[in-house]
């Protein structure tokens, strides 16, 4: 009997341990929607399905993959990353994914909690056996598709070996390396709300405007020149054209052979490319994931 009590108490304690990282309980009346999200009714179920956490913890080990010691060390690494870069950083592990896929879980988790708009999240999803790196805001520009791929590569063997804490350390250090290498492209920027938008191609528009106005002025100028020599007599043609002979005589034929090696159809990804997608909150994110 005593053993049973202990077991019951232990089982009861599990939710408490989990709940300890919850900062609030969402309800229909209070969804705790962060300011960065523009709330729409369609988001409600997704918000309710997303845990509301204490954003200062940074490490949310729902799947209990790290020891307390590891968790603290990861927290220290993450904190120093945050201090050095000004980007937010979150590490999450889950045993059960109640969303569509790893991306939607990561995006909702990041968006519906009060994390900074600019940040990076590392999710270990034990349910779908996928690890996912999600970037938001400014972080998208530091981690283009190639860099995300190379981080995923770098963590892959640790993930296969179930060394999740090792993978997390590597994630933080590699992220810092890339942050320090700087932004790759200048094609994107932020609008006043902090959303990623394309930079206005002012030079292109100036060139277009120049060409269009030049064409318009030249056309108008051309209209002032009315005196032209006619070089045809189309206006005086009677509509009685008769074709009296039509002959197409074959003269000769030749065939040339050219060596054309077959090229493989695989496309190489261009450097500096970003693929972004939006989660249920409508905020765009970069990043990528991999099965392990």
């Amino acid at each position, binding site marked *: 009997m005593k053993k049973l009590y202990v077991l019951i108490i232990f089982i009861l304690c599990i939710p408490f341990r989990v709940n300890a990282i919850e900062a609030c309980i969402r309800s229909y009346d209070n969804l705790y929607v962060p300011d960065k999200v523009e709330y729409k009714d369609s988001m409600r179920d997704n918000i309710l399905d997303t845990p509301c956490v204490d954003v200062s913890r940074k490490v949310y080990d729902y799947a209990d993959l790290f020891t307390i010691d590891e968790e603290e060390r990861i927290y220290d690494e993450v904190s120093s990353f945050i201090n050095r870069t000004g980007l937010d950083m979150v590490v999450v592990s889950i045993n059960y994914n109640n969303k569509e896929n790893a991306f939607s879980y990561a995006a909702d988790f990041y968006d519906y909690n009060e994390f900074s708009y600019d940040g990076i999240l590392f999710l270990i999803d034990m349910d779908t056996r996928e690890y996912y790196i999600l970037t938001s805001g400014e972080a998208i520009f530091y981690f283009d598709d190639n860099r995300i791929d190379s981080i995923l590569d770098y963590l892959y063997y640790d993930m296969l070996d179930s060394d999740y804490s090792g993978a997390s350390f590597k994630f933080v250090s590699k992220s810092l390396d890339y942050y320090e290498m700087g932004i790759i492209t200048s094609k994107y920027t932020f609008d006043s709300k902090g959303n990623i*938008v*394309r930079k206005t191609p002012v030079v292109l528009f100036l060139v*277009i405007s120049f060409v269009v106005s030049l064409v318009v002025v030249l056309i*108008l100028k051309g209209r002032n020149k009315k005196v032209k020599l006619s070089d045809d007599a*189309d206006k005086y043609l009677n509509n009685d054209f*008769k074709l009296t002979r039509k002959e197409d005589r074959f003269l*000769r034929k030749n*065939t040339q052979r050219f060596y054309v090696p077959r090229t493989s159809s695989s496309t190489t990804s261009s450097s500096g490319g970003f693929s972004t997608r939006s989660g249920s909150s409508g905020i765009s994110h970069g990043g990528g994931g991999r099965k392990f």
Partner: protein
Amino acid sequence: MELMRMAKRKTSVGHKCPNCHANLTFKPKSQNWICEYCDSEFSLDDLKKNEQKYEEKKVVEEYLGEFDVYRCPDCGAEIITDLNTVATFCIYCKNTSIIKERLVGKFELKYIIPFKNTKEDAIAAFKKLGHGHPLMPKEFADIKNISEIRGIYIPFWLFSSSVDGRLVSEGRRIHTRYMGDYRYVTTEVYEIVREGNVSFSYVPNDGSKKFDDGIMNSIEPFNYDNLVLFSPSYLSGFYAEKYDLDSNEAKKNIEMRIKNTVSDLLGTQVRGYSSNTVKSMDINYDNLKVEYVFLPVWFLNIKYKDKLYTFAMNGENGKLIGNIPVDKKKMIITFLIVFVLVFLICILFFYIFIRGNL
């Protein structure tokens, strides 16, 4: 002495009112002649009936090289004309003088399109020049810039002919196919012959070297349904010139125009080739007819900022032609307005459809 020897007798006639013997003027609107003194109006038939009643006054012509001198049949003043003038005005009494000698023999005219529009129409058309020409200087279409306006019957050659054309060209058809790592390009060469027959009527070429061919081409086309049998009476009130470019010279221009048109017509019959090069294009005229006619043209000499501009109006359909000057300031302003407008549209379009659409 030499002047006397070269002197010839020539006649110059005006058209007289059968009622009061004043000079008559042709009115394009009614296509009749009116007498401004006794207010009578006459048709061509009326005039013909009365014509023989009057003796033509004779004037003496003196040979002066490039110019001829006539005596005005009305006031006796000297009229100086160049060698091609058929109808002109006496600068003293403003009456029309027609030099009939220049309308006989090889200069005999068969048809004329009489003026259908008046000097006022030409002025009105000039005033409206700004419509559709935003780059024209605003003050250009001002009547005060018109330094001279003349209605002139221009000698024209009209060519009508049935034309046989023969186009020979070399066409290529190129097929490409792939087998393994090789591309096979097969080129088939064909000789293409197209022959056709088509007819042209009344292709015009002006018979006067004095007038700019570009302007003469640009006021085309005249509606030849309005051609009427020539009578010198139509010339009253207008200037007229005889040709100094003969039909053979004019034919060269016309042939070039006809050849281009026939070549285009036959060219459209060549289809289904990747490329083709014309080897030869020959035309033959069958039943070539050449007509010498007078066509009505209003000439406007425009003086604007010390530069002269010539405008011509088709005296039959009112089409006004001439190179309109371009206002550089307006050009720059138009450029800037379009520039800013297009730029704003680009930005607007970008912000609405592209900027946030990642």
